[in-house]
């Protein structure tokens, strides 16, 4: 047996290729943040040093705090997208987490801005607002505030070179006001945003496929690094958010339809750092031979669930900590729709988990208290394919399809077709229930310029135009 010489061993060690170590998501933003903080400290020390010489000739810059609203034009809140970016498939979140406190980050004052408010920002949303996602969050006083994201205005003539826009509502869609949006476009390549989640009036994320974060209700927004991955799902409650980072072959508006690798990450409100969730080893990098999806839901404000591409259901505490395999769902997700929600299997969380397994127009409904064991609740024969499922206290379950909306008042046992007061071609891409009676749905056709709301547990749905007519 040959014995290697010391020289050979050193050479072979030196000649070994360095294996690249990929940065975790958000690393560049974290570095930038640290660098900025240090430069600020250095600048303040330098200013302090100069002050000895120049006396009181300089004043300390004022930092603006709070949910202020300082727009200077009627189109404030609109911050444009790449003019050629098509709207992404709409979706949203109607869960109502509790309110949390504000952060102390200095606000940027280089651009007029308006933020999410429990009343109104006082400014109109931009015209031609095409919503792709909706979110509702608690104000901490029992009321809820909603927000939509989408493309608006006329490409090439938006307030900035981007047309991505936000609008908020404090009266559940009766009226909308302008809110500042991230300075990015709609989905293009692995960048841009189409989806929106807020956990309270201040902390929110715009994502799909890129990722942006705000800690001040809509201004400023900070871009977060995704390490080249696409963010296909994000849910949050309290001060915690979870997100699915996926590797997807497609880009642009259909970014979510071709994803084959998924990882679960978490962050806290106000943080720019995303860290991998402690999940069992086989689920650290979930892969699928065919395009698939992963769905995140949060139940009762305490437990998060992930329906994985294999159909396994993972669960973990929203307070942080390790996740475990809760069980196996009765069906597994197919390729995602454009907005990231899977086709074939829809998961929702209300008082318990609800699962809709879609097969040739018939959705079989199962319920589970913990994701471990599933109980057949009923089935609904719908026209069109199921696109989204929602559940709330009191047994209300709502299913959206590519043609309409169906509702159940008894946890999925019996179903009826809802009355839609205005035609919605191609149906709805997302439906969510905020309370037992209140809910919101996003039409598949963003060009309609409206979302639909219900106040009677999903029986009837009426349009809520975003932009003022």
């Amino acid at each position: 047996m040959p014995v290697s010489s010391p020289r050979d061993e050193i050479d072979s060690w030196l000649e070994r290729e360095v294996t690249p170590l990929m940065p975790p998501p958000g690393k560049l933003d974290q570095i930038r943040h640290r660098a900025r903080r240090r430069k600020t400290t250095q600048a303040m020390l330098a200013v302090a040093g100069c002050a000895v010489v120049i006396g009181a000739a300089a004043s300390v810059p004022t930092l603006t705090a709070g949910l202020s609203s300082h727009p200077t034009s009627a189109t404030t809140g609109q911050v444009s997208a790449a003019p050629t970016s098509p709207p992404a498939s709409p979706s949203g979140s109607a869960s109502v987490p509790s309110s949390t406190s504000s952060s102390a980050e200095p606000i940027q004052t280089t651009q007029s801005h308006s933020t999410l408010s429990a009343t109104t920002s006082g400014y109109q949303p931009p015209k031609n607002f095409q919503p792709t996602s909706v979110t509702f969050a608690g104000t901490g006083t029992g009321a809820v505030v909603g927000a939509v994201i989408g493309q608006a205005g006329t490409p090439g003539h938006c307030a900035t070179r981007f047309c991505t826009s936000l609008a908020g509502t404090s009266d559940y869609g009766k009226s909308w006001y302008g809110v500042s949006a991230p300075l990015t476009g709609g989905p293009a390549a692995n960048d841009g945003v189409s989806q929106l989640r807020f956990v309270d009036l201040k902390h929110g994320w715009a994502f799909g496929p890129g990722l942006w974060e705000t800690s001040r209700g809509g201004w400023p927004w900070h871009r977060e690094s995704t390490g080249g991955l696409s963010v296909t799902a994000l849910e949050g409650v309290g001060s915690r958010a979870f997100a699915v980072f996926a590797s997807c072959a497609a880009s642009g508006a259909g970014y979510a339809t071709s994803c084959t690798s998924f990882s679960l990450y978490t962050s806290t409100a106000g943080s720019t750092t995303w860290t991998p969730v402690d999940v069992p080893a086989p689920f650290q990098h979930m892969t699928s031979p065919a395009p698939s999806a992963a769905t995140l839901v949060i139940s009762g404000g305490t437990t998060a669930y992930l329906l994985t591409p294999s159909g396994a259901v993972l669960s973990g505490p929203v307070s942080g900590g390790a996740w475990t395999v809760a069980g196996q769902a009765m069906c597994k997700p197919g390729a995602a729709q454009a907005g990231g929600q899977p086709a074939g299997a829809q998961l929702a969380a209300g008082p318990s988990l609800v699962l809709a397994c879609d097969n040739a127009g018939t959705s079989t409904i199962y319920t589970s208290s913990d994701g471990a064991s599933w109980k057949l609740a009923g089935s609904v024969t719908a026209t069109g394919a199921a696109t989204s499922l929602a559940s709330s206290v009191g047994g209300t379950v709502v299913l959206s399809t590519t043609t309409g909306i169906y509702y159940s008042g008894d946890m999925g046992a019996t179903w009826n077709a809802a009355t839609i007061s205005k035609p919605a071609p191609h149906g709805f891409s997302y439906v969510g229930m905020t309370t037992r009676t209140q809910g919101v749905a996003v039409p598949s056709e963003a060009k309609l310029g409206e979302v639909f709301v219900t106040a009677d547990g999903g029986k009837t749905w009426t349009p809520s135009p975003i932009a003022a007519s």
Partner: protein
Amino acid sequence: MARLRASDHQAVEDFFNACYPRLAGWVRRLVDDDDTAHEIASEAFTRLLARWSGLENPQSYVYMIATNLVRDHWRKSGRERTAVRVMSAAGGAELTYQPAQDVDVRALIEALPERLRSAFLLHYYAGFGVKEVAAMLGRPEGTIKADLFHARARLKAAMGDARE
């Protein structure tokens, strides 16, 4: 306080995407775990950003910073290892240590005099040419060549001693 211009912002991102994985991987071969490697690479990039606009060769700069941080880490972990040994000896425990090949060679590099070690790491490991290393360390090229020769000779001798 001056902020990075938009073009600089994009340049930083491009540089980060191009260089961070290899720098972190390079550091990973010199330290004990991924977390420490990320920590050192992040700190190097943080210091780089603080001086971004005044640098002609950011790659050299970030590697130099990382090299110094690795050296600091080695010093610190050396102290920790010493402390562990003392504590173990006091408790009558016997340390069992079976180094992987990486760690084995690394320990020898770690033991090189600092003058030789920096040149060795930057040339053989980070892939910089003799001329670049000379510029980075502020020494003549001939001195760098001699340092590299002596570093290899010491490693060879140390490796031989370790096998006897």
